[in-house]
């Protein structure tokens, strides 16, 4: 840390000196006392096996439901983190470019918007107690709605037209 390049002017030199004043005792302590006395040992990210999803479970199979629900919650956590990463990228780009953001950050914004819509499709509006069965029923309701009215976002048809097309 601290610029070790040759200072461009007096102010630069002053700032370099100030940073070095704070930084060098810490760096010395780290390099002389801490790192030689430590042995490195590993830690891992846990990999979970895929288990049958809710659509492969019988209705009275509580264990299958519990495993599918746990998998759903893990997947939700992972998907939320992925969405956060995409959102951070988009926001950083927007903040960096300021007025040019519309032109420069288009792909990042589109990627994020699509990911956000997909996340909402799967996990949104389920409430605090929403479990995997609620998500499955939400999917079923959306598919029925799409069968009657066409793709989501294209408006509702009236009852006769919807019944006719089904």
């Amino acid at each position, binding site marked *: 840390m601290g610029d070790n390049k040759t200072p461009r002017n007096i102010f630069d030199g002053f700032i370099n000196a100030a940073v070095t004043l704070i930084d060098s005792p810490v760096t010395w302590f780290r390099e002389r*006392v*801490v790192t030689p*006395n*430590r042995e*490195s*040992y*590993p*830690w*891992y*990210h*846990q*990999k979970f096996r895929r288990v049958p999803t809710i659509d492969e479970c019988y209705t*009275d199979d*509580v*264990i299958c439901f*519990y*495993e599918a629900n*746990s998998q759903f919650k893990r997947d939700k956590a992972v998907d939320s983190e992925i969405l956060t990463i995409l959102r951070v990228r988009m926001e950083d780009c927007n903040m960096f470019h300021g007025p040019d953001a519309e032109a420069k950050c288009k792909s990042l914004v589109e990627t994020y918007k699509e990911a956000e819509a997909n996340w909402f499709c799967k996990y949104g509006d389920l409430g605090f107690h929403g479990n995997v069965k609620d998500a499955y029923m939400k999917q079923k309701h959306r598919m029925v709605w799409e069968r009657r009215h066409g793709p989501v976002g294209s408006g509702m048809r009236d009852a006769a037209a919807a019944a006719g097309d089904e």
Partner: protein
Amino acid sequence: MAAWSTLAKPQQTSAVLQGIRRLLAPNATSDLRHGITQQIRCGGGHHKEMFITPSRFQWNKCKDMVHYYVFLGVIPLSLITFFVNIYVGPATLTPIPENYKPKYWEYYRHPVTRFISRYIMPNPQMEYERHMNVLHEEEERRQLYLLEKKVKQLMAERSDYQAYYYSPNTAIKYYRKMKEVKKEENDRQGDNL
């Protein structure tokens, strides 16, 4: 309340207060203690003295709390934290090697977290499977209960099964016997009772 202690300080006593002290305790000796001492009037020779001093409760309690929280809390925990972080240090993230199943505490980074997970907390996979076993057992119990409930409901509807809804009248032979006895008494004694 604290003003009362000023009466006890020997340095600042005026003449009036010294007179009052001599009235209260003529035989008192004012020595280095912050208090008026009184001699117990006893016939004898032993001079036990009761020292009237202001309360030192808050000061003693303060010292107790400092001893407890600092010497047993702050200092040991700081030392442990310092030496664990410096000499043991956090782990480095590595991909899982082939054909190796990591132990359940090796999924954490900080050594104290690993210690807690290894020696204090239970194995998460074991708890997961135990919970599933409990769910399975409870579900079996529930299915048996639902079956019994359905059977009872059908028997109540149809009233055709001699089981839960049939309570046999096994006392009928005693009724018959008593009827004979009563008839015999009635024949002997008549109805005019």
